[in-house]
C-alpha cells in the first residue's frame, strides 16, 4: 500500500501542444514562404580580351532597335518604320518582326534550316533585337520592355507548339522544346551592333 502511494504522478503534458503551437506560429511569422518570382534572363558571355574588335556585322533589315530614353519613352526602329511607340505596341511589332510571315524584304531574312522533328523550316534566325538604354532610363521601363520581348517570344513559341505538336510549349517534351527554340531563337542584344548594307 505504501509503495503505491509514493509513486510519482505522471507529468501533465496537456500544454505541450500549446507550446509547440506557439513555436509553429513563431516560425510562420519569421519565415517567408513567398516564392520569389522574376523574369529570367541570360547575360551574354564576357568579351574575349584577346579579341579586341568583336563587332558583329548585321544587315540592317535584321535589326529591330528598341531604344529607351531618359524619360522611359520607347523608340522603335527597323526597316519598315521608326518612331516613338507605346509599350503595348511592342509585342505585336516584335512578333511581326520575328515571324516575317510574308517574307518581306524589309523584315529579317529567312533561311532554310534543318531542325529535328520539324524538318526543313524557313526561319529568321539571323534577326537581332537590340535594346539600348540611357543611364537615366527608369528600371521599370526597361523591365516592361524585357517583359514584352519575352512575352512576344513566348507567344510565338506557343503558337508554333500548338500548330506542330498540338500542345502548349510548357507541356512539350524536352526535345520538342529544343526544336521550337531553334525555330524561334531569342536574339536580344544589349550591345550595339554595327550596321551595314542598305541606306543609312
Amino acid at each position: 500500500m505504501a509503495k503505491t502511494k509514493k509513486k510519482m504522478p505522471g507529468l501533465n503534458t496537456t500544454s505541450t501542444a500549446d507550446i509547440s503551437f506557439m513555436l509553429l506560429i513563431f516560425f510562420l511569422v519569421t519565415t517567408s514562404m513567398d516564392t520569389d518570382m522574376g523574369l529570367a534572363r541570360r547575360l551574354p558571355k564576357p568579351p574575349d580580351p584577346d579579341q579586341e574588335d568583336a563587332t558583329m556585322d548585321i544587315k540592317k533589315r535584321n535589326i529591330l532597335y528598341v531604344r529607351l530614353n531618359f524619360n522611359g519613352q520607347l523608340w522603335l526602329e527597323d526597316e519598315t518604320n521608326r518612331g516613338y511607340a507605346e509599350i503595348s505596341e511592342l509585342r505585336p511589332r516584335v512578333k511581326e518582326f520575328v515571324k516575317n510571315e510574308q517574307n518581306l524584304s524589309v523584315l529579317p531574312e529567312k533561311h532554310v534550316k534543318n531542325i529535328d522533328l520539324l524538318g526543313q523550316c524557313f526561319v529568321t534566325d539571323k534577326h537581332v533585337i537590340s535594346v539600348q538604354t540611357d543611364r537615366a532610363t527608369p528600371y521599370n521601363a526597361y523591365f516592361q520592355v524585357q517583359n514584352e520581348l519575352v512575352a512576344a517570344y513566348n507567344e510565338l513559341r506557343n503558337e508554333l507548339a500548338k500548330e506542330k505538336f498540338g500542345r502548349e510549349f510548357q507541356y512539350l517534351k524536352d526535345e520538342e522544346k529544343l526544336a521550337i527554340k531553334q525555330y524561334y531563337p531569342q536574339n536580344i542584344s544589349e550591345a550595339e551592333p554595327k550596321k551595314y548594307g542598305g541606306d543609312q
Partner: protein
Amino acid sequence: MAGFKKKEKRGMPEMNTSSLPDLIFTILFFFMMVTTMREVTLKVKFTIPAGTELEKLEKKSVVSFIYVGPPTDQLRAQMGSGTRIQLNDRYAEAREVMDFIAAERQGMTNQAEQIISIKADQHTQMGYITDIKEVLRKSWALRINYSATRRN
C-alpha cells in the same frame, strides 16, 4: 447518485490527446523545411516591378540576391536618398559585386547553376543596373533574374 454514475459510464470516452504535440511538431518541422529564414535585414527600400512572363525561383540554395534602391527611412538621415546597392548586410559599390559572387559560389555544390536575383526599385536609373550587369558578366554569373511581382 446511482443514476449519475450510470450516466457517466455511458458517455463518450475522452479523446486521447497525447499525440497532439507530436502532430504539431510534425507541422512545425514541415514549415521549417519548406520556408526560409529572412536572411538579411534590408537596408534599401524597393518596390519591384510587375510583369507577366515570370518564372519561379525553385532552388533557393543557388540564388544570391542583389538589392538596389534608396536607403530605408531610418537610414536616410545618415545615408542620403541616392540609390544604393546592398550585398548581404551592407551597402556596396557595383565593383564589389565580383567578390560577392565569388564568396557566394564558395558554398555552392553546383556553381554552374548559380542564379543572381536582382531586386531593384522601379525608379532606379538603368546606369546602376547596367554597371551591375557588366560586373556579373565579367564574373561569369550569367543567369540572372529580375525579381518582380505578378500582374494580370
